């Protein structure tokens, strides 16, 4: 395979430079980027801690195991907190952290302006604090704030204006963060006019372009409709239009959770396995497919909605099924890279090579277990995507069963696992409580296995999601597999193990944060080896990010143009539903 740009330089010179760089931790080379990454991770892990504690309260309350903490009416404040803190703040602050690291690392330069970077971080933080204040105000009677609207905040349920204003500020912060990384890329491009885009930056840019398209929906929903409604500037909204705008954003946000995990699986996991990435070009293809297909699928969350013609649901279904392709390709590459690593470490046989993998390394074990659970979550997602079979499980406990495998494990466990590898590099401190870190991914895996399988089966019996009570007065659930008490017990035990797993992770992180710098070797090797098949093996058109962005915009216009036009044509505020503050 030819590497033209490389062969022009003396090989030894580059090798020297690499090894010199590798002797320094990331924090020594890019202290400002390391600081921003640390700050983002600090907020992310704080949100994780609070969200996980709310999680155990819910798991025990709705299974009727322990109800001493909250009343059933307050359950929904807790549920809103759990959803917003984990799905938006834990995941996306982590994303901004790891993307800041990835930008600096793969371009070999710091972010251009420390003040600007700190600015977007502080904007995101203040937005998150405002939103959290509105949510937790609902638990305290004397405070006039409440936002018991859940993570999806469907109108005409209405939260305190602070909730929406906070979300808007936080969102603008993420936009500026993306601009910061892309700007850094353009600085790099000036000095490297002919280089291929480094893989990590390529992933960061495609992910952010997807985010810019997707967040347009929620930005319009919040700024044009919900914030004015909560301030009393308008007196009604069209619930179907605002739902549609939410899901315009609500599905691609799923990929915004997953892309940091994919980013880690493609660029770090192969090395943790002892090998190298199988194929750089296919990694690029996968991210392009996500950029193109993530948004024009939102109607698959509205299969059960009246007012949306079946044809648009069908288009969304078709696009959704094709979105399986990049995930299938990822499954291949990740497993192939792991197998390559295992064989480098002396593994042999058809499956015996699995034993040669470093299962005692928490960074590796977490990523690998997360990937395994993602496969299960992918298959339950295919049921959700199947337009007609979805009617059996729509809005049942099956759905949180599904997304606790995807965002709750594929994303969350990978983020935790990569932190075991990355946090020492951005702090210059050796990972503390290593033994706790080693068993933590397994605790999470077992807890999620218990909780999620029971949630899926309960959903098949028709048990609804998002409710504080395990049973009803007028009828009993008739499960096909297992019994209701058995499922409730598995959910309660699983939820408890998951909270324990989250707290073990936080213990390791806080312990490392408080540890003394410079004591002991970091025990992590930051070097990321070149892929087996490198970027130069792929056509240059893959790097034409503008082209892919344009195709994405066209597909979104096809999927959403007419439906949104028809909802707005009879008046953007019609049918007019007045608000219901909660």
């Amino acid at each position, binding site marked *: 395979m030819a590497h033209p740009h490389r062969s022009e330089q003396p090989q030894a010179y580059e090798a020297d430079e690499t090894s010199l760089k590798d002797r320094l931790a990331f924090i020594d080379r890019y202290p400002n980027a390391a600081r921003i990454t640390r700050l983002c991770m600090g907020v992310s892990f704080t949100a994780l801690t609070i969200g996980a504690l709310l999680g155990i309260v819910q798991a025990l309350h709705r299974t009727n195991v322990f109800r001493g903490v909250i009343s*059933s*009416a307050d359950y*929904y404040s807790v549920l809103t907190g759990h959803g917003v803190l984990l799905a938006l703040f834990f995941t996306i602050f982590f994303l901004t952290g790891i993307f800041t690291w990835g930008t600096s690392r793969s371009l070999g330069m710091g972010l251009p302006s420390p003040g600007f970077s700190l600015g977007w971080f502080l904007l995101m933080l203040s937005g998150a604090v405002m939103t959290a204040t509105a949510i937790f105000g609902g638990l305290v009677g004397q405070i006039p704030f409440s936002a*018991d609207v859940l993570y999806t905040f*469907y109108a*005409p*349920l209405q939260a305190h204006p602070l909730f929406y204003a906070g979300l808007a500020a936080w969102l603008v912060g993420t936009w500026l963060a993306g601009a910061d990384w892309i700007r850094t890329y353009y600085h790099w491009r000036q000095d490297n006019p002919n280089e291929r885009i480094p893989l990590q930056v390529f992933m960061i840019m495609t992910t952010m372009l997807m985010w810019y398209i997707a967040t347009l929906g929620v930005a319009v929903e919040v700024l044009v409709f919900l914030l004015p409604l909560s301030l009393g500037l308008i007196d009604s909204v069209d*619930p*179907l239009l605002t739902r549609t705008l939410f899901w315009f954003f609500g599905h691609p946000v799923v990929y915004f959770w997953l892309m940091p995990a994919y980013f880690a699986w493609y660029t770090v996991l192969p090395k943790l396995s002892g090998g190298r990435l*199988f*194929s750089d*070009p*296919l990694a690029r293809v996968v991210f392009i497919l996500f950029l193109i297909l993530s948004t024009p699928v939102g109607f698959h969350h509205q299969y*059960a*909605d*009246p*007012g*949306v*013609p*079946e044809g648009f*649901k*069908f288009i969304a*279904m*078709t696009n959704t*099924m*094709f979105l*399986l*392709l990049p995930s*299938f*390709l990822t499954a*291949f*590459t990740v497993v*192939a890279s792991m197998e390559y690593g295992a064989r480098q470490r002396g593994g042999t046989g058809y499956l015996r090579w699995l034993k040669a993998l470093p299962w005692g390394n928490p960074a590796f074990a977490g990523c690998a277990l997360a990937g395994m659970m993602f496969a299960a979550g992918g298959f339950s997602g295919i049921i959700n995507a199947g*337009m*007609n079979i979805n*009617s*059996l499980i*729509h*809005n049942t406990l099956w759905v949180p069963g599904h997304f606790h495998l995807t965002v709750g494990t594929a994303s969350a466990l990978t983020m935790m696992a990569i932190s075991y590898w990355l946090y020492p590099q951005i702090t210059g401190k050796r990972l503390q409580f290593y033994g706790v870190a080693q068993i933590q991914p397994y605790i999470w895996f077992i807890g999620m296995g218990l909780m999620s399988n029971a949630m899926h089966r309960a959903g098949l019996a*028709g048990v*609804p*999601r*998002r*409710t*504080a*009570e395990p049973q*009803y007065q*007028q*009828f*009993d*659930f*008739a499960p096909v597999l297992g019994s209701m008490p058995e499922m409730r017990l598995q959910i309660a035990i699983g939820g408890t193990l998951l909270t324990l797993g989250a707290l073990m992770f936080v213990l390791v992180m806080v312990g490392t944060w408080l540890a003394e710098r410079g004591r002991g070797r970091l025990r992590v090797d930051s070097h990321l080896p070149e892929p087996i*098949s490198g970027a130069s*093996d792929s056509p240059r058109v893959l790097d034409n990010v503008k082209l892919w962005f344009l195709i994405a915009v066209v597909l979104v216009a096809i999927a959403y143009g007419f439906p949104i036009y028809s909802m707005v044509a*009879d008046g953007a505020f019609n*049918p*007019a*539903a007045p608000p*219901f503050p*909660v």
Partner: protein
Amino acid sequence: MHVHRFERLWLVAALAMIVLFIGTVTYGAVGAGYGMVDDTGGQVDPTDATASENFREPGVYNGSEPGHYDVYIEAKQFLFVPGTSDPVRVPANSTVTFHVTSTDVVHGFEVVGTNINTMAVPGQVATITVEFDDPGQYGLVCNEYCGSGHHTMEGSLEVVPPGQFNKSEVN
């Protein structure tokens, strides 16, 4: 661009599976005749649903032909009308079209253990047509969060033997 032989094989198999999934859904819609909830129910004023022809006073009505019934259900915090205080009653061996709307916030309308499952969105009327072959008892549940009493929003549906269904139960 070099793509490994195994990866090409995997790619083709994945694409075949995707096409198969789309095929099964298409068959469900075209062959088996599964009708999705869509825009055929029309729109109403959320604060005055019966003002429009798309929705009637909640209750059971005779359908367009014998053995067909229309059931109009209003979902509101935290009741189904009918359904919660009085069960919805329809005869077995019938074709029933449910017309569901909400007059306050978004609710769900799920007949537990079946694929009768729709959102009740203020301003929109969801219509679902189903066949009840045998008598039976079903629970109704709101499966979308609708406020602090959401967990109390339930009801029941009774499919009774045709002999036990009284003509006076129809509006």
